[in-house]
């Protein structure tokens, strides 16, 4: 699995398709968090929103890199469809880690904040919650299920709006609401960890659905 992730990471790196989502993320951070001096929880809420969009983009780009023949070779080499899909998800998650680090550090440079350990943990949890949800959307809208990228993009936008707006149902919606109203980061650590676990569950469900549909179609 490590070899598979290493291969996919290298291919993505060389293709430079990561560049656009990365720049978008940094741009969003700059716009949303510059000259901000409020509580860091709300600032990290903005960063998480950016992470949601960028992780969808990264995942769709990553899976769309390889054409079907090429993926067939990787599937036979790795031994199963599922292993390759898990490799793609792992690689997408790996790409989200440097974004998470940027999301933690850049707001401190753009604005003036007092930074505590609780802020760092909360920021990481919040961004990873959004990253997992974003990867789940990206996998569902990837080339594995949609030959025509136009439809996939439309569905991705609809799903993004849904997870942002579905009150009380979507972990992202709950998370962003909590972060906006928080005054102390330490109070939210527990509930955000629960949301992180829920979004990991959402990701697992999305992977299972994608696997089932793509194998049926193959």
């Amino acid at each position, binding site marked *: 699995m490590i070899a598979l992730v290493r291969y996919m990471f290298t291919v993505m790196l060389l293709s430079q398709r990561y560049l656009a989502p990365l720049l978008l993320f940094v741009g969003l951070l700059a716009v949303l968090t510059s000259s901000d001096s409020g509580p860091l929880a709300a600032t990290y809420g903005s960063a998480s929103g950016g992470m949601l969009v960028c992780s969808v983009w990264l995942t769709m780009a990553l899976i769309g890199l390889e054409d079907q023949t*090429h993926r067939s070779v990787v599937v*036979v080499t790795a031994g199963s469809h599922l292993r390759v899909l898990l490799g793609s998800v792992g690689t997408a998650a790996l790409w989200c880690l440097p974004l998470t680090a940027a999301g933690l550090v850049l707001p401190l440079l753009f604005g003036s904040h007092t930074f505590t350990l609780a802020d760092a943990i909360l920021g990481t949890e919040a961004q990873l919650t959004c990253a997992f949800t974003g990867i789940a959307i990206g996998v569902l809208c990837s080339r594995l299920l949609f030959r025509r990228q136009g439809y996939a993009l439309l569905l991705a936008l609809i799903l993004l709006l849904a997870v942002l707006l579905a009150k009380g149902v979507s972990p992202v919606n709950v998370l962003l609401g909590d972060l906006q109203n928080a005054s102390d980061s330490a109070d939210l650590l527990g509930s955000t960890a629960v949301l992180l676990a829920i979004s990991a569950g959402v990701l697992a469900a999305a992977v299972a659905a994608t696997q089932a549909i793509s194998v049926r179609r193959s």
Partner: protein
Amino acid sequence: MLRCESVSKRYGRGRWVLQDVDLEVSGGDVLAVVGGNGSGKSTLLRILVGLSQPTSGQVLGRPQHIGYVPDRFTAHERVSALSYLTHMGRIRGLSGAAARTRAGRLLDRLALVGGRNAALRTLSKGNAQKVALAQALLVEPALLVLDEPWSGLDASAHGVLAEFIGEVSAAGGAVVFTDHREAITETHATGVFAIGDGRVSPRGGPHSGGRVTEVELALTVPVTGVRPLEVNWYALPGVTDAARRDDAIVLRVAREHSDTVLLTALQHHWSVESLTRPGVDHASRVGARRAAL
């Protein structure tokens, strides 16, 4: 080793691409699957390697190490050929150094033009096909599946490909390949399956009782030195090829017409040097013995 039991396949609600296919592949076999374009050859291969699920029926005993060479290997990637193969070797469980060495040796044998450090997407069709072939052989495969491997390869690579097939089969692995040219399947395969209307049926080869579909007939000037009469070989029934090799003429004749052609040759004072079944040693010896009788 690998067994297909009444495998059927259709995509969605479309027509049946394969119907009730029963196929058994054992170690050491070299099987050819022939059929026209769109007859379901590639689908059958995808089911054999586990890329596609059969709509009904099952495939049993699929080995762990499978080499798969698709018919078109279009890579849009910037990684170099050698680095790509190293990654594939690592995914197969080799160490980085071992994968690199093995990949280098395979590319040397295939004489990759354009350099092993050239990006995959800059390679021509034939050279990309060589990389596709190399990735399937990084680990000695127990099952090697090739989809029209001869198309796009140059003449020297044809020889190397035949060597690879021979090596895998000698090491106890099974080889299954497709091609639409009968000459190639006759030369390289120990068994041939024809596919049409979704049905797969054995044709020729030892698997159907050793029926030979084509024989190779070498004719020379007799020892007495009498010049034989010129014959327009292509005008004879069943002759698919007539070539001059040294001072002999080598004919390829469909089995059912070989007696007629032989008789014509003898009547025109040609001497029979050998009568063989092309490609398969065992069968050619049988063929020669039959000719001696």
